[in-house]
């Protein structure tokens, strides 16, 4: 005879579920109200969109787009890529080092280092929560207009992104092998690099590739506030209402982002293929 009662299928969940749905609907209604979202307004302004599109096409017209201009855009696009690459690279390295100290029970006994761990976590949060455009404005102020300000912005943004996710990935690794090494008298520093980092590697690589994709997208926008790259060209063409050439730049940005995303997806698959 079976003694233990079979638990009810739903318990008291239906009531809390219904409450949650009602709450969600209320919050949605309230937010729509404030967001100014309006279908009629969107449809009503279609003539402006049409005007933009009419003037933007054909984007390439040999009377209007000279080779010199195109060459300049091309260099700006390259600069955007270089900014994103260097900024991501530096951000990855610094973010990784900070993540080591931000992960629970990794570099230090979990009981002992709470203050240091907390401060590093806060620093990473600060880097992440302040939007990249704000960082860009600050860095333009500090180091002046140009690519360097953009690179610093991407770096800080990447530290915030990778610091958080690297730390989470290293916290999530199965710690039993780390424990075995600890039982053999290994130092924490060695344990981290001999057991935790190897186990976390696929996650770390995936996150790094996402960080680079994100950096490419945001480096395009940074030019809008003067932090180098192709965004600056786009900004000035839009101001001059030179929509045809703006369209060329938008096309170039689209191609860059697409190529980088495809490449990153391919590399991610390559990494994951070796994992079960």
């Amino acid at each position, binding site marked *: 005879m079976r003694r233990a009662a079979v638990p009810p299928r739903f318990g008291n969940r239906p009531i809390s579920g219904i409450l949650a749905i009602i709450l969600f609907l209320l919050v949605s209604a309230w937010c729509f109200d404030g967001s100014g979202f309006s279908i009629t307004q969107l449809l009503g302004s279609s003539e402006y969109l049409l005007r933009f599109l009419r003037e933007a096409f054909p984007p390439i017209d040999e009377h209007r787009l000279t080779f010199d201009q195109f060459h300049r855009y091309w260099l700006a696009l390259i600069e955007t890529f270089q900014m994103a690459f260097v900024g991501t690279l530096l951000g990855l390295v610094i973010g990784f080092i900070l993540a080591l100290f931000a992960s629970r029970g990794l570099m230090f006994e979990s009981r002992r280092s709470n203050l240091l761990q907390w401060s590093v976590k806060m620093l990473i949060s600060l880097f992440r929560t302040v939007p990249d455009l704000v960082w860009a404005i600050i860095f333009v102020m500090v180091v002046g207009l140009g690519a360097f300000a953009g690179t610093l912005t991407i770096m800080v943004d990447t530290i915030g992104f990778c610091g958080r996710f690297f730390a989470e990935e290293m916290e999530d690794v*199965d710690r*039993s*092998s780390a*424990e*075995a*090494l*600890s*039982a*053999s*008298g*290994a*130092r924490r*520093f*060695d*344990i981290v*690099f*001999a*057991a935790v980092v*190897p*186990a976390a*590697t*696929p996650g770390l690589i995936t996150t790094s590739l996402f960080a680079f994709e994100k950096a490419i997208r945001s480096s395009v926008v940074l030019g809008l506030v003067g932090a180098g790259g192709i965004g600056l060209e786009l900004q000035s063409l839009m101001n001059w209402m030179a929509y045809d050439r703006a369209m060329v730049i938008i096309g170039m940005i689209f191609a860059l982002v697409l190529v980088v995303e495809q490449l990153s997806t391919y590399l991610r698959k390559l990494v994951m293929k070796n*994992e*079960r």
Partner: protein
Amino acid sequence: MVAIVTAEDIAMRYGTMSILKGVSFALEAGESLSLIGSNGAGKSTLIRCLLSLEPITAGRISLFGREIQNLKPSELRSSRCRVGVVFQEHNLVPRLSVLSNVVHGALGRNTQTFGSMISGITLWSHIIAGSAHRERAMECLERVNLADLAHRRADTLSGGQSQRVAIARALMQEPDLIIADEPAASLDPIAGEEVMGLFSELCREAGVSLIFSTHNISHAVDFADRMMAMKSGKISIDCPTGSVDLQALKAEYA
């Protein structure tokens, strides 16, 4: 004789559940001790406590004459590195090669000086390890008959193969004491006998002391000088293996 391990009336709890309830024993240098007991009796927990991987709530544990509860981290490391542990779940680093996992066994040796900090870095992977360490790791793998798998990734091994890698890693430590939690559990009968034979050979010839747990009563009797049986957190039998009543034991534990 010198006591290598002493446990005096140790108690241990997970939350409110009392797992160890007053365990006392002493192990002398060169002695081998087997540990039997049904699932959940507390064998693995006792082993974890001996290495200070779990805090005990009462009693005293000493390793090599030093009480381990109050050691500084560096002192604890130098005690631990003399103990080669083989865990029940093997606990290898999954994405590294077998050889790297074995090389890791040397990480605990001499971690006190600055120079050793640098040499510790070379032990993260066999790729950067010195040739002396690589060769010694291969010797350890040969002792467990796994030399031909040295370059396989640890997460592609079978249960018994990874068990033997874990044993090789423990041998790499050149330990004075080996503690093995069911070392033969995932091995086929022949490999199991071999591994147990290897352990008792180390005891006889290198003077290594041994504690191992097992569900195999004949292993417990054949490969140890002394055996202890655990029953719900207490030691119910502690006697030389020469004098056990095999029939009574089998009736109770097998």
